[in-house]
């Protein structure tokens, strides 16, 4: 594959936000702002158990979106096994704590490490040669389906279709809706801080370099393959941690908790809303999506169709993310062209 083709390869995400704030106060400022707004949500919906459940799930998805964004937005690896990696965390935590008897916190950490290991391994396999981006998509999709088959098939351990109750965490603050919400919010902020610090570090510089021009990055001495695997490791750890924490809060896990159609499609839509490669975009996207999903609940199965349409539309026309584009439109004078970046491709 020619250098031009490889360089162009990342242009889908290269149109995304590249300016990265160097100042720590600004970084923590934006994360704190997100935290403050989301912290107020229980005051608003706190008396509805159902709505709190939806809000907690929304936060779990925000974590998924941050992890996916770290992998896809930073290094262009399309990980189509977000749900499965979260499931490794969820089922791992539940089984380690309930069946093996590992203390809850240790079970959670071990399960998250397990997810990191699986994600890192998939990435390592995929980045072997120049076809990394393609193989990442293929092999993660294969893994996603394998995981679903495994969960459904090994029903003596996983409960099959109906899933299993998670007794670990019951009777603790994790099962109190409000405290559980703040635990999940804390996890969102933790993921944001980790991603934010990563972006500011040498690793972040390498991510941007290889995203903008892989060949140039390679020439500048960035070990492209290694940084892709790093991103997959860290992002997958976030997915596993969020999946595990959600299992402890929800008190039950089933194949649909972490299903491909239930998680991956949603996370991709969230990212398309919030903006690929941005720091807080995934959280904004998750918020917008959670509200939208509640409004569309009447549609039932047709929601999947609607999200499919959204993925096509958003990735075709508004590749920087809906929210950043709208923000830019508001900021710009009316009449100027919208913020869809040109392809940078001849013909």
């Amino acid at each position, binding site marked *: 594959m020619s250098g031009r083709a490889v360089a162009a390869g990342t242009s889908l995400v290269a149109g995304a936000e590249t300016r990265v704030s160097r100042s720590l106060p600004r970084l923590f400022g934006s994360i704190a702002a997100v935290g403050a707004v989301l912290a107020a949500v229980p005051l608003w919906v706190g008396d509805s158990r159902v709505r709190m459940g939806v809000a907690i799930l929304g936060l779990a998805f925000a974590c998924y979106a941050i992890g996916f964004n770290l992998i896809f937005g930073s290094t262009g690896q399309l990980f189509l096994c977000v749900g499965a990696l979260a499931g490794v965390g969820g089922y791992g935590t539940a089984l380690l704590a309930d069946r093996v008897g590992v203390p809850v916190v240790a079970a959670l950490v071990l399960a998250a490490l397990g997810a990191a290991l699986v994600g890192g391994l998939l990435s390592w396999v995929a980045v072997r040669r120049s076809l990394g981006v393609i193989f990442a998509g293929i092999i993660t999709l294969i893994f996603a389906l394998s995981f679903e088959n*495994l969960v459904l*098939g090994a029903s003596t351990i996983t409960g099959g279709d109906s899933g299993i109750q998670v007794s670990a965490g019951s009777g603790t603050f994790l099962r109190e809706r409000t405290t559980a919400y703040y635990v999940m919010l804390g996890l969102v902020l933790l993921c944001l801080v980790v991603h934010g610090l990563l972006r500011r570090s040498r690793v972040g510089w390498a991510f941007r370099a290889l995203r903008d021009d892989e060949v140039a990055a390679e020439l500048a001495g960035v070990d492209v393959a290694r940084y892709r695997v790093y991103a997959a490791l860290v992002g997958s750890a976030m997915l596993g941690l969020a999946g595990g924490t959600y299992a402890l809060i929800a008190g039950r896990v089933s194949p649909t908790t972490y299903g491909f159609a239930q998680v991956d499609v949603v996370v991709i839509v969230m990212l398309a809303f919030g903006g690929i490669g941005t720091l807080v975009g995934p959280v904004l996207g998750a918020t917008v999506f959670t509200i939208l999903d509640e409004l569309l609940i009447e549609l039932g199965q047709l929601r999947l169709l609607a999200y499919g349409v959204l993925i096509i539309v958003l990735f075709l026309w508004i590749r920087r993310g809906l929210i950043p584009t709208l923000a830019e439109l508001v900021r710009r004078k009316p009449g100027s062209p919208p913020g869809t970046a040109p392809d940078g491709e001849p013909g």
Partner: protein
Amino acid sequence: MTASILDGIVLGLQFGVLAAGLTLVYGLGGVLNLAYGQIAVVSGLVTLLTMEAGVPAVPAALIGLVAGGALGLIFDLTILQPVYRRHGEARVLLSLLLTLGAAFVIDGYLNWRYPLRGLNLRITGDPLVVFGVRMRMGSVVASGITIVVIGVLYWLFRYTRLGRAIRSVIQDEEGSRLVGIDPQLMMRLILVLSGVLAAIVAITRSMVAPVNVRAGFSLTVLGLIVTVVGGLGSIPGAFLAGLVLGIINSVASSYIGTFLSLIILLVAAAITIVIRPTGLLGVRE
């Protein structure tokens, strides 16, 4: 053991046809179609609905094939147009995202309109004894059709001007333009062919086991595994890998457990990528 190997060959032939449709589209246009399995499912459903309308099975199946080809053509004319305007990895990435979106659109519609439906073409007849193993008539007919399809594909690509033209685009797109071949037109034809192949897989599979409306992603993923192992863009590779993986799958299913068979195939694909990234017979890097 003979029985599971024979089953594996039956399955492997279908794997090969399944992967051929994916690998041709990738080899020709650098496009990966993640809605491929959904095309198969829609074709199967069209066959089912046509049969329910009172049409006999054979013409209904032919209508299913037409539906598969038409769906391939629709993909080419709609969501793949913006994909063609990109090059290299950006093209693959956009094709992955857009066809994934299309797959969800189809899955969402089918799950809403036709939940729990599935095509099941029962072929009646006494079992046939092959190598001392009793084979169900459905398996025999399905394999017969699949072998004919493979033969037709071989003839098409080996001996016809059109087949040669398609191979030339895979080997050197610019070279093919210089001898007067329109790569866009070839791509369109290949998407139609790939849709027909998906339909053939759905119909022949339904002679062995029901193909329900939720099978889309499983079919895509099986096709992807075979494609990766056989080498992206290689048709002979697709058939070789199909046979190998079909036998592995069948033997693993009967000796270890069905739910683990996909994991075993995943491991096979991962090992192939690590050891030989171009696949068994792949030429492209």
